[in-house]
Each structure stands twice: as structure tokens, then as C-alpha cells.
């Protein structure tokens, strides 16, 4: 049994090492691609697949998150006579945490799985070897455009999620529960800062890169056969999901430390 645990641990560490190498190569190549006009058509194609077609999904996610938060929080706040502040709770939660995280998870499912399946199929049908055999770096041709597309589009998709979350919350709070519209917006505006919105959007850059890098890596290293591709897709989603949550935690600590450094008095108040 100890031998099995030892082998599994060794394999896991090995896999982390291989991913780190892949990630480093992909980062360098992506930076090069960003500066080369020849790569732009590839990035544009991926942006269309990844971004434009994901807009409805993330908007629906945002709307339901906002509406659910309103339904859940109304009773508690109304009990204390603070229902007009419902917008603060909904909007802070949406723009800072739930919007970015849930949009990223939706993207991990919709885009990450598709990326892994596409690259995994290319791998098992020797298309990636074909790219290499023609003197082209498969990371430059296949991985970099996908990383750049997700890096650039995830923050924009998060803005869509935030907007729909805010509108969903407003719809339930004002139309359904009859909260005064002016008070709802005025409290929201005074408590939700640009900093809170910025945190959510900046998180998008990290989440986008994590989803793309993990999904492409799993596709590149997937085992042969339909079962291999299926397994790679599952692993890609689970790894992306865990990475999003872990990154969200780490970024929360970092952003809090930055906030305290630059606005120490404001945070105490």
C-alpha cells in the first residue's frame, strides 16, 4: 500500500512539474504572439468561439445569481428594517465574488471542456504531431491563441455577469418586493466602490489564463482513445474548478492587503 501511495505521489509531483514547464513555455510564447500581427486572426477566431458564444450563458448565470441573492437576503434585512440596503449586499456579492467565480466556472465547463476535447482529439489523431512535423510549434499555433482569447475575454464576460446580476437583483428587490428604487440605487452607489468592481474584473484575467492553460495541458497530454479524451475533459474541469476557487482565495488575501496598504483609514471606518 505504501508503494502505491509513493508511486501516486511521485506521479502527481511529476505531473505538476510537467504542467509548470508547459505553463512557462505557453506564457513566453503567448507574449510573443501578442506582439505578432500574424497571430491575430487565430486569436480573433478563438475570441469568437470563446467569447461571443459564451455571452448568453454568463448573462443567464449573472441574472439568476442576482435574483436568488435578493430572494434569500430580503427577509433578514426587512426584519431589521434595512430592506433599502438590499442593493448593497447583492451588488457587493455579485461584483466582488459571485459574479467572477460563477462566470469562470461556467466558462470552465463550457470552454475548458471543449478546449480539452478538441486538443485531446487532435492529439490522439496525431494532428498535434502533424503540426510539429511541418516545423510549427503547436504551443504557438494551438495554445497561445486560446490563452490570449480567454485572458482578454474573461474580464469582459465577468462584466456582463455583473451587469445581469445587478439587474436581476434590482428586478426582484424593486419590482417584486417594492423597495424604493431611488434608495436602492443610492445605498448601492455609496457602498459599492470602483475598487470592488475592479477586483472582480481583475480576477477574470487570472481565471481566464488558469482555465485555458489547464484545459490545453490536459488536451495535450490526454491518453489514447475515446475514454482517454473523456477522462482528460473531466480532469480539466475538476482542475480548473479547484484552481478558480484556490485563486479566488489567494487573490482575496492579496487584494485585501493592497487595500489596507493604500487606504488604511478608509478600511477601518
Amino acid at each position, binding site marked *: 500500500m505504501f508503494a502505491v501511495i509513493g508511486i501516486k505521489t511521485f506521479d502527481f509531483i511529476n505531473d505538476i512539474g510537467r504542467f509548470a514547464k508547459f505553463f512557462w513555455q505557453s506564457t513566453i510564447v503567448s507574449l510573443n504572439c501578442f506582439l505578432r500581427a500574424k497571430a491575430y486572426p487565430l486569436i480573433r477566431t478563438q475570441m469568437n468561439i470563446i467569447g461571443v458564444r459564451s455571452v448568453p450563458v454568463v448573462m443567464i448565470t449573472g441574472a439568476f445569481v442576482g435574483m436568488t441573492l435578493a430572494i434569500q437576503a430580503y427577509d433578514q434585512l426587512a426584519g431589521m428594517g434595512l430592506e433599502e440596503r438590499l442593493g448593497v449586499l447583492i451588488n457587493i456579492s455579485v461584483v466582488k465574488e459571485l459574479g467572477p467565480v460563477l462566470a469562470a466556472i461556467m466558462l470552465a465547463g463550457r470552454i475548458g471542456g471543449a478546449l480539452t476535447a478538441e486538443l485531446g*482529439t*487532435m492529439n490522439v*489523431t*496525431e*494532428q498535434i*504531431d*502533424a503540426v*510539429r*512535423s*511541418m*516545423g*510549427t*510549434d503547436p504551443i504557438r*499555433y494551438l495554445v497561445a491563441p486560446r490563452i490570449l482569447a480567454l485572458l482578454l475575454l474573461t474580464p469582459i464576460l465577468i462584466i456582463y455577469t455583473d451587469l445581469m446580476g445587478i439587474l436581476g437583483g434590482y428586478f426582484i428587490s424593486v419590482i417584486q418586493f417594492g423597495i424604493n428604487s431611488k434608495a436602492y440605487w443610492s445605498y448601492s452607489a455609496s457602498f459599492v466602490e470602483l475598487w470592488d468592481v475592479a477586483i472582480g474584473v481583475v480576477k477574470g484575467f487570472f481565471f481566464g489564463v488558469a482555465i485555458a492553460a489547464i484545459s490545453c495541458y490536459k488536451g495535450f497530454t490526454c491518453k489514447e482513445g475515446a475514454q482517454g479524451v473523456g477522462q482528460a475533459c473531466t480532469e480539466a474541469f475538476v482542475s480548473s474548478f479547484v484552481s478558480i476557487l484556490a485563486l479566488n482565495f489567494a487573490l482575496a488575501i492579496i487584494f485585501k492587503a493592497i487595500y489596507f496598504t493604500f487606504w488604511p483609514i478608509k478600511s477601518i471606518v
Partner: protein
Amino acid sequence: METENENKTKAKNEHNSIIEVKSLIKKFKNKLVLDKINLNIEKGKTTVVIGPSGCGKTVLLKHLIVLLRPSSGEVYFNNDRIDDLKEKELDKIRTHYGFLFQGGALFDSLSVRDNIIFPIDQHYKITDWKQIDELVKSKLAMVGLDGYQNYYPAKLSGGQRKRVALARAIALNPDIILYDEPTTGLDPIRSDIINEIILKLQRELQITSIVVTHDMKSAYKVADRIVMLHNGKIVADGDADYIRNHPHPVVQQFINGQVDEDDLALLRMKGTMSQAQFLPSDFVQ
């Protein structure tokens, strides 16, 4: 022990070799796939590598273009060592190669035209698209598929896919083409079309070809030289007549397509094929 014929072939090839493999060993985890392979590929000739499935033919082929790295040993292209080069350095070397993969490995998302343009677009700045379209037309004409430019790989038959893949492999006018099982999965007529194309490319463009196959009809038709691999080692190396008359029993068994006594003994085992083996015990007709 090497025969006189094999020594002559080696000596002749060393003078005019485009690819040279020295003491190549390849292991996957603990499994030895290639065991100290030494091979010289003569410029402008067609070398066919034969051997039973799983003997390491494709692995050897992928080492010649360094898609796989050797566990030990060396690979040379035009007398320059290439197995230790970085991927970026290899990209330039690989433009001298064309590789026909077993399943074609065409890019599903690209049309036939875009598949053929792909290697050109990767290495040259295309300014005159009319000229490129003419080039695509001529490459497709060479494989008998002019007019299929706007088709997608999914709409093509297995043979057509291989021919388009071949057109893509010759897009950069390579010095050498590696064919991985070019006739596998094709009917005899389509197989012969592929054989004729291989011969035509060698005749008209003086391209060096290395063909991995277990189709002996194809091997005899296209080969200037046949190399047989068995258990990761070269067991025979010479022209078609030499291979036909080779005394090694493994070579004779393979080229004549005969099962050996061990396989027959397994098939003769009592009850192996009986219905009882395949049906549940409570099965009632």
C-alpha cells in the same frame, strides 16, 4: 551475423546518405522498443521498413524527424546531428521533411485548401494568393484530387484523406517524405493509387522516401530497399529479391503471411471457440 549483401548495402548507403541512425535505443518506461538500430537512408531512393504490428516501425519513423527523442543513440540529417536540437532549431530542419501520418492527420477545422496552405503560411509571408491557389491546384493534381479544394476532411473517404495529406506533405517541396502505413485501411485499388503516387513523386521530384508498412505487395512495388524490424532489431536489409529469398524464418513467415506453430496451437485448444464460453450458464434457447 551480417551477410555480404547487407554489408554491401550499408557501404553503398554511407556514401550518399541523407539520414543516418546510430545505435538508436528507445524505451517506453521499462519496455525496450528499439534496440541499437543502425540505419543509413540513401538520398533519392525509397526505403521500406516492414515488420509485424507493434515491432517499433512507427516509433523508428518518428525518430527520423525527432517527433520522438531517443533513449540513447544519434540521428543525423545531411550529416548534422538533430536528435539533440531544441524544438525551435528542429522547426527549420523539419521543413525539409514531409510526413504522411497513418490516419492522414488532416486538420478537421480547415478545408482541403487551407490544410495544404498551412505549412506554407507558417514559413512564408503570403502576398500573392492567386499564386498560392495555383500551387494548391498543382499539389492536388499530383495526387489526383484537383477540384476538392473547398471540401472538409470529414466529407472525404479514407483514401482521399490520405491523398490530401500527401499533397500537404509535399507542399514545401521536401527532400524526404516519411510514410506511416500509407495503404492501411484502403481497398486494393486505392492502395495501388497510393503506391503509384509514391513512385511518381520519386520519379518526378527525386524525393527520398521512407515507407513503413506491413503490406508486402506495396513494399515490393515501391521499394529500392527493404528493411525488416523484429523485436526492435533489424533482422534483414536488402532489395526485394534479397528479402524474398532471405533464409531467416521470421522474415519468411512475415513476407508469406503465415501464422507460427505457437499461434496454431492456441487455436487448436479444445473448447476455445465453443458456444459455452460466450453464453451465460443459464442461457436457454
